[in-house]
């Protein structure tokens, strides 16, 4: 974990609420974490766990009716949730770049790929049209696109899914960002293409000393790329630990169940373990631990509110039984 002074991003008590006409949905609650320069942090969780909302909050991109009900997102000391728009625009796409799951929604279908890439650079840097074009060609080559000049003249629909995601990644890397937010960047891709894209992110990280926030539902993807992992459930962080610790000694019962239910290609005895029940409905307020109804070791005290608490310098969990009784896996 990074020390206070060196954190590039510090999220503090973030709470994001969606006001619907008849009810309120709390998509993220009391989320706090830090990312140091060059560090890769992973967020894992299932659909509805709030991981994408956290990502979007980092660039103040949560769409209405969502609003930031509490907390701060400090980037280099500036609160991105309250700073003037002009200041935010200087960060968006320049110092913090973002890649989404579906590259088709990130590209303009009417414009040639090359024009979009060059435009992204010219928005943030004073460069001539031709210099921007050349820079874009080079970045496309860097991300492993064969014949980049021809691809620059293509429209997005003429590229394959993997090539589109690489083009989007090239666009994100053009401005040499300090932080790359990748929200399920490989979920829509085939495994062999996924391997290519993950390797690219890894390489860009080394070359640019770029920090990465990687959101994924796939524990294998996170295991390969990230140094630390946050596990989210029902809008809250339930466990935070260095990647090796988390996989070796998961402490929260949800993390343990999630790891058990992830199929492992190399397992000696492949087994099917599921978590009983369904994820909770966030529209109705949850008292105590949100996972308790599905948890094998739930006790009476689980109905009290739970706080993410450090077990040691690096490992924190929100399970009250682990905190107070030292419950072991």
């Amino acid at each position, binding site marked *: 974990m990074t020390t206070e002074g060196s954190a590039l991003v510090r999220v503090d008590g973030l709470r994001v609420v969606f006001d619907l006409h008849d009810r309120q949905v709390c998509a993220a609650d009391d989320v706090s974490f830090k990312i140091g320069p060059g560090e890769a942090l992973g967020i894992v969780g*299932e*659909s509805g766990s709030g991981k994408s909302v956290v990502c979007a909050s980092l660039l103040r991109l949560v769409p209405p009716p969502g609003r930031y009900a509490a907390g701060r997102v400090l980037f280099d000391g500036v609160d991105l949730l309250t700073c003037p728009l002009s200041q935010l625009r200087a960060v968006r796409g320049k110092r913090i770049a973002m890649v989404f799951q579906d590259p088709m929604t990130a590209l303009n279908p009417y414009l040639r790929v090359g024009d979009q890439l060059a435009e992204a650079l010219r928005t943030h840097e004073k460069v001539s049209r031709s210099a921007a074009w050349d820079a874009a060609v080079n970045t496309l080559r860097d991300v492993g696109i064969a014949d980049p000049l021809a691809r620059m003249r293509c429209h997005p629909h003429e590229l394959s899914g993997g090539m589109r995601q690489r083009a989007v990644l090239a666009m994100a890397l053009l401005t040499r960002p300090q932080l790359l937010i990748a929200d399920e960047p490989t979920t829509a891709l085939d495994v062999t*293409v996924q391997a290519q894209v993950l*390797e690219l992110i890894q390489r860009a990280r080394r070359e640019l000393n770029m920090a990465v926030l990687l959101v994924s539902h796939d524990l294998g993807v996170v295991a390969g790329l990230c140094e630390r992992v946050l596990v989210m459930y029902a809008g809250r962080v339930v466990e935070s630990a260095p990647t090796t610790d988390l*996989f070796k000694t998961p402490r929260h019962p949800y993390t343990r169940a999630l790891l058990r239910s*992830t199929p492992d290609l190399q397992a000696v005895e492949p087994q099917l373990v599921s978590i009983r029940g369904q994820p909770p409905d966030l529209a109705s307020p949850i008292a105590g631990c949100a996972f308790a109804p599905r948890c094998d070791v739930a006790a009476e005290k689980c109905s009290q509110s739970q706080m993410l608490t450090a077990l040691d310098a690096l490992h924190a969990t929100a399970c009250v039984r682990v905190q107070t009784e030292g419950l072991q896996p």
Partner: protein
Amino acid sequence: MSALLEVTDVRTWFPVADGAFRNGTQTVKAVDGVSFTMRAGEALGLAGESGCGKTTLGRTIVRLTEPTGGRVKLDGLDVTALEGEGLRKSRAQFQMIFQDPQASLNPRMTVLETLVEALQAHRAVPAAELRGRVLKLLEQVGLSESALDQYPHQFSGGQRQRIAIARALAVEPKLIVADEPVSALDVSIRAQILTLLNELRARLGLSLIFIGHDLAVLRGVCDRIAVMYLGRIVELGPARDVVDRPLHPYTQALISAVPVPDPERERSRQRIVLEGDPPSPLSPPSGCSFHPRCAKKSERCVSEVPPLVERDGRSVACHVV
């Protein structure tokens, strides 16, 4: 034991318009010469990346897509030769489950209506027995009676998939083709549906063709796995053997690309990163269609299509292996 399903040289080709303003047509050979057999009660996994033809093959077997050539025999019955009423009647033998139950269930029909329709599609069930039969179906897939009068949108993804499975079971089929049945579900729910399919297979003696891209899942659920690339089976064998000791260079690359949920093993793995994208099925490469991306290719691979050859219970289509 005799084979329940015999698939012989099945080809499914699609004509595609050659550009918006030209009149010519090209052909996509989505499935191009696939043969295999299946025992009764067996679970066969069809693996491969998008565009490899696994879904088209599954749809062709249950005659949702017309084959261009070849033959599919189910329990001695030539499915490819059936037409009209004969085909409709035969559909009680084989059913399909799709990836997205939200799309495959009628949003305006309650669970009861959906299942009654399926029950009556092929058999005359006395009205007095209907409710009991529906309840039995629900019980088989782990849903309670309270589900009867609810609509699909009132269920979660996992429960909806259970309803789709119950509907497939209603006609008492011999074979179920499940096309990515758990891909749209969360990991914690996935295993529930996989366990259910496994139990049903054992209890009802069903045969299952499981189409999926996740080899870790297929390894856990299937007896055998067939790996497809560009319309052909490149490797077929017992699930554990194919995943643990793949023979075909493509299978090896595919398996090495699957991330393992363990940081130490994941970081120390040798990964074969394939260059480029799969080729367009409109203009497949000559010879072995994998040769442009293959590190082990020889001259023969460029000119000659390798046949699927069986040895010691495993089949591979590769000149080099």
